[in-house]
């Protein structure tokens, strides 16, 4: 349920009245989170950006259907997830480029790199890059609902109830999905988790 003082809901009300500036503000705020979710589903930056644009286009076209009672971010990520699912289905019918293809694992293929901005030393940067690739591979191996749930957990403004709404299941089922996803990731990334690279700085 949307907070009456939710700034996103207020912006969407303006969008419903044709306010393009309000819509632009929403795009600026959510473009990265949407792109993160779509990219980790499609695994191709160009296609992910096209789909992410389509998400916002769909939001604009469907603005007249937006209900103030719904939280905007929940509505937005539901649209994003549905479009991702449509794309997954389309690819399964036309498997020119399988989603399960792990180009990063092939020695003679360049990995689909994600820019890293946090490491400073060259060695640490290489290690960090390798760890990020491993996480991405592990995420890609998860079933869609688990991968989406993990991605949505990164969105601070989404509560577990909101995530449940996007996934279309109950709160307990959602927490179970997240729990299973994390178990799978921990198992897959065990060697890296033990290195202590990700230890919190005390």
């Amino acid at each position: 349920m949307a907070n009456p003082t939710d700034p996103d809901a207020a912006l969407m009300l303006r969008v419903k009245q044709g306010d393009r500036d309000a819509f632009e503000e929403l795009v600026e705020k959510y473009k990265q989170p949407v792109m993160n979710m779509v990219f980790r589903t499609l695994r191709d930056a160009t296609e992910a950006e096209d789909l992410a644009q389509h998400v916002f286009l769909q939001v604009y076209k469907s603005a007249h259907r937006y209900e103030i009672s719904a939280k905007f971010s929940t509505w937005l990520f539901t649209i994003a997830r549905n479009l991702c699912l449509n794309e997954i289905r389309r690819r399964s019918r036309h498997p020119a480029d399988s989603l399960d293809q792990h180009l990063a694992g092939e020695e003679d293929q360049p990995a689909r790199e994600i820019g890293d901005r946090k490491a400073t030393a060259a060695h640490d940067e290489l290690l960090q890059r390798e760890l990020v690739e491993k996480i991405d591979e592990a995420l890609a191996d998860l079933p869609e609902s688990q991968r989406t749930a993990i991605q949505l957990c990164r969105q601070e403004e989404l509560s577990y109830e909101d995530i449940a709404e996007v996934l279309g299941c109950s709160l307990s089922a959602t927490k179970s999905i997240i729990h299973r996803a994390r178990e799978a990731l921990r198992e897959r990334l065990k060697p890296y988790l033990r290195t202590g690279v990700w230890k919190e700085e005390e």
Partner: protein
Amino acid sequence: MNESDYMNLREAAWRRPHTAEEKAQLQSYLVIHPESQLEWESDTALNLALSNLPNAPLSSNFTARVLQAIDLEELREHRRRSPDWIQRVRLWLPRMAVASLVVGLGGLGYQRVRLHQIRDEQARSVALISKVAVALPDMSMWQDFDAIARLGQTQPSANDQILWAALSAE
């Protein structure tokens, strides 16, 4: 604190850092349940790994492209909603213009071809007449033409008629 409370603390840590009170509660639990220590440490490491995942690459003009796509969509929608006759005019006017141009150019082309053909025929006629004119006798031969023609129109005399009849009878 029971296992359910411990689970709630874990779930909270998946989304945000613990408060001081939550940290204290967790420590108390782990002291009593040391078997959960390893699980908690790997959980923490995973939390950190996921939170440190870099953002996906995104074009600097992403928003501009979204707005551009909306403009295009609105234009399409506007055209779709235009009255039928305007749509028909928009559809057929350019086609008719092209067709008129093609017919016009074709007509002009045909006219030029016909003109050349007529000129060729005229040139051939002139050439023919020139040849005939060369073969014709001198004009001075025609000066007594009227007199000669009148001679042919006179009736023969009676004596000539009797002579002709006699010759015919033989």
